[in-house]
C-alpha cells in the first residue's frame, strides 16, 4: 500500500503546508491507481466485440474509473487521519498465528453452537425453496472437497493441484458403476471412496518421495490426465457427452415420477409428485455425512496419524529421525483426502443426475485449493466457512457473475495481505499434567 507512515505519530494539528502535501500525495496515489485500473479494465470493459469488429465502450469505462479514482482518493485521505491509521493498524496486524487453548478454558458452549447449527441445517430443506436447497447441497459438496483437500494440503502440507481427479473418480464411479454394473447410489458410496483412495495410493506411492514443487506438478498432471481420459475414451465414458447418474433411493423407493417396477417414493407415501423430494433426500444424507466427516476430522487431529501429518508438514527430516516412515504417513494423508474427495464426487453426480468432463477442470482444483487457503490451512471451521463463501456467494451475486473470477482473485489478494494464515486462527489443544507433575510444578514455583 502506498501510504506514507512518517507522520503517524504527529499530533492532529497540522500546518497548512503539511495538509497541502498530504492532499497532493493522495491525489497522486489516486491517479496512479486509476492508471493501473485503466490498464486492467480498459481491454475488459472498454472494448466490446461486435463480430470481427469492436466498439469502444467509453461510458462504462469512464464510470468505473471515476468510481475507482474517488474511492482511492477518499481512502487515501481517510487513512491519513488518526482514525484511519488506527483502523489500518488493526487490519495489518499479522498476529493471526497459532494459539494454544488455555487449560481451564474448555469449549463449554461449543456444544450449544453445534446443536444450533444442526437444528438449523435440518430445518432448511423443509423451509427453503428447491433452488436454495440445491445451492446449499453444492455448498456442502464443496465443504466435503475442502475437508478432503485440507487433510492433504492443510494438515500434511502436500501441495496437491490435481485434487479434482479424485472428485471425478467418485462422480464417474457412480455413473459408470450404474451404467455397467448396475450398482446404485448406496453401494457406490463406499466403493467410490475406496476407488478414489486406491487411485490416490497408486499415484502417491511413487510420487510422494518427491518434494513440494515436483509433487504439485505431478498432481496437476494427474488431474489433467484423468479429465482427458474421461473426455477421449468415448466408448467407455461417453466422452464429452457424459453419462447419466442415478439418484439415491430410500430403502429401494425411487424419487422418479414413474418407475419401471415397484412404486415410486411419492406414491408409497401417498404424496403428489414433487421433484424437490429428491433434493431434500440428498440434502439430508449429505448433511449427515458432512457432520460425520467433520467429526472424523476432529478425531484425526487428536490421533497419532493426524499428529504425524502435522509433524510432517512442520519438518520431514525430524519426522524421519523419530522413526516415522514419511512415505507411508504422506500416503495415508493422500488416501484419506482422496476418499473424501471421491465421496463428494458421488454426491455431485447424483445431485446433477449426469456427469461430463467439463465439471472436472483445473479451475475446480484451484477453487478447492482456494477454499482450503482461505479457510486457514488446517482449520476445519475455516474450511466450512470458506466453502460456503466461495460457492454460495456467486449464487447470491448472480448479477455480477461475469466478474466472478476477478472477485475471486481480488479476495485472494486481500487475504494474502491481511489474513495470510486464513480466516480462522488455529487453536492447539492443551493437556492437563498428571497429579505427580502438578505437585512438582508447585514445588518449582
Amino acid at each position: 500500500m502506498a501510504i506514507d507512515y512518517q507522520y503517524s505519530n504527529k499530533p492532529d494539528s497540522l500546518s497548512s503546508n503539511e495538509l497541502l502535501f498530504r492532499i497532493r500525495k493522495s491525489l497522486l496515489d489516486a491517479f496512479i491507481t486509476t492508471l493501473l485500473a485503466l490498464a486492467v479494465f480498459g481491454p475488459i470493459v472498454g472494448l466490446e466485440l461486435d463480430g470481427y469488429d469492436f466498439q469502444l465502450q467509453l461510458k462504462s469505462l469512464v464510470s468505473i474509473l471515476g468510481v475507482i479514482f474517488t474511492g482511492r482518493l477518499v481512502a487515501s485521505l481517510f487513512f491519513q487521519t488518526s482514525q484511519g491509521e488506527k483502523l489500518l493498524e488493526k487490519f495489518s496486524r499479522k498476529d493471526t498465528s497459532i494459539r494454544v487453548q488455555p487449560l481451564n478454558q474448555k469449549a463449554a458452549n461449543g456444544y450449544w453452537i453445534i446443536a444450533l447449527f444442526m437444528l438449523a441445517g435440518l430445518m432448511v430443506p423443509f423451509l427453503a425453496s428447491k433452488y436454495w436447497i440445491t445451492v446449499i447441497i453444492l455448498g456442502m459438496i464443496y465443504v466435503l472437497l475442502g475437508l478432503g483437500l485440507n487433510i492433504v494440503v492443510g494438515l500434511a502440507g502436500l501441495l496437491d493441484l490435481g485434487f479434482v481427479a479424485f472428485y471425478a473418480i467418485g462422480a464417474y464411479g457412480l455413473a459408470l458403476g450404474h451404467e455397467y454394473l448396475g450398482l446404485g447410489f448406496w453401494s457406490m458410496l463406499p466403493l467410490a471412496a475406496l476407488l478414489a483412495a486406491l487411485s490416490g495410493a497408486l499415484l502417491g506411492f511413487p510420487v510422494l518421495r518427491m518434494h513440494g514443487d515436483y509433487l504439485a506438478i505431478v498432481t496437476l498432471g494427474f488431474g489433467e490426465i484423468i479429465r482427458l481420459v474421461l473426455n477421449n475414451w468415448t466408448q467407455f465414458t461417453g466422452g464429452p457427452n457424459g453419462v447419466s447418474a442415478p439418484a439415491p433411493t430410500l430403502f429401494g423407493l425411487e424419487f422418479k415420477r414413474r418407475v419401471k417396477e415397484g412404486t415410486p417414493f411419492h406414491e408409497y407415501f401417498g404424496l403428489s409428485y414433487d421433484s424437490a423430494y429428491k433434493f431434500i433426500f440428498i440434502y439430508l444424507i449429505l448433511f449427515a455425512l458432512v457432520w460425520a466427516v467433520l467429526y472424523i476430522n476432529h478425531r484425526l487431529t487428536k490421533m497419532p496419524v493426524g499428529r504425524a501429518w502435522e509433524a510432517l508438514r512442520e519438518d520431514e527430516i525430524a519426522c524421519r529421525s523419530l522413526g516415522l516412515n514419511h512415505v507411508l504417513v504422506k500416503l495415508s494423508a493422500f488416501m484419506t483426502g482422496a476418499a473424501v474427495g471421491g465421496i463428494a464426487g458421488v454426491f455431485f453426480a447424483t445431485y446433477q443426475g449426469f456427469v461430463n468432463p467439463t465439471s472436472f477442470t483445473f479451475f475446480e482444483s484451484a477453487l478447492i485449493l482456494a477454499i482450503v487457503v482461505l479457510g486457514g490451512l488446517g482449520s476445519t471451521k475455516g474450511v466450512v466457512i470458506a466453502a460456503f463463501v466461495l460457492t454460495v456467494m456467486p449464487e447470491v451475486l448472480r448479477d455480477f457473475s461475469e466478474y466472478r473470477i476477478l472477485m475471486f482473485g481480488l479476495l485472494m489478494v486481500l487475504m494474502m495481505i491481511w489474513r495470510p494464515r486464513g480466516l480462522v486462527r488455529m487453536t492447539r489443544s492443551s493437556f492437563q499434567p498428571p497429579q505427580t507433575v502438578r505437585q512438582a510444578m508447585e514445588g518449582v514455583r
Partner: protein
Amino acid sequence: MTSSSDAILTIKGLNMQFGGIKALENIDFQVPRGSITALIGPNGAGKTTVFNCLTGFYRATSGKIELNAHKTKTSVTSVLGESFKASDLWQPVRFGRRLYYKLFGGSHQVNRAGLARTFQNIRLFKEMTALENLLVAQHMQLNRSFLAGIINTRSFQKSEENALNKAWYWLEQLDLINEGNQLAGQLPYGKQRRLEIARALCTNPELLCLDEPAAGLNPQETAELAKTLNTLRSEHKLTILLIEHDMGMVMKISSQIVVLDHGLVIARGSPDQIKNDPAVISAYLGTEEETGVPEHEPALA
C-alpha cells in the same frame, strides 16, 4: 579400547564422498555401551557428516555401520535399501529382505533400531506444543488404528494416556514441565535444545546422538546439560555420542573422545590422552603455535 563385543555402535572403513569432495575417509571407531563418547574436531571436519551417515540420512559411499541395540544387530547400510545383486536370485530370503527395505527402508528404520538423534540446527515441530512434539516421537509405540481412534475405544484412550504420561515424565526430567503446553517454536533457545533431547528420548533409544547440544547455551545451562547427560547415562542406561565444541564439558563428561580433522580420525582415546596428543593440539591450534609440536601435520590434509 573396548572389545567389540560390548560396543553399541561399530563404524568400520566409513567413506563419504560428495561429488569429488571426500568428506570422510576411512573412519573407524566404536562406541562402547554405556559410555559417553565425544566426537570433536574443527569446523568442517566432517562430524555432522558422520552423524548423517550413521543415522541413515546420507548413504555412505562405502563402509560398515553396525548398531547393536534392542538385542539385535542392525546394519545401517542394508536398512537404507541396498541395490539388488545377481546372487539374490537363488537366495529368496535375502532378496525378500532387500525388497522390503527398498520399499519401506530409510532413516526411520535406524531410529526404530534404537538410535535417536538431535540436529545441529534445531528441528522442532515449531507450530505444535512441546507436549505434542513428544507425542509425535512416540508414534510407533501407540495405538495407530484408524477405527479405534475415531470411535475412541478404551484401548485407544489408554494408549494416549500412557503417551501423555511418558511425555510429561521426560519434560520433567529435562526441566521443562512449565513449558508443556507452549508452542515449541516460541520457547527460548536453551529450552528448545532440551526439548529436542526430550523428544529424541521419547523414541526409547539405547544410543543417543547429540549434535552440538551446548551450542548457544550459557555456561550455567551448559553445566546443567552436562549433569543431565550424566544422569541419562547412569540412571537410564543410555549410551551417548555427542559432537561438541565446548572442551571443558567434553573433557569433564566423556569417557572416550574421537578427534576428526579433514574427514580423518586423527586420534581417539580417553580425555587425558587426547589433551596431550600432539596431532590434536596442532589440528586445533595450528602448527605455528609454540607447543613444541613437530610440523608433520600436512600429511593429514
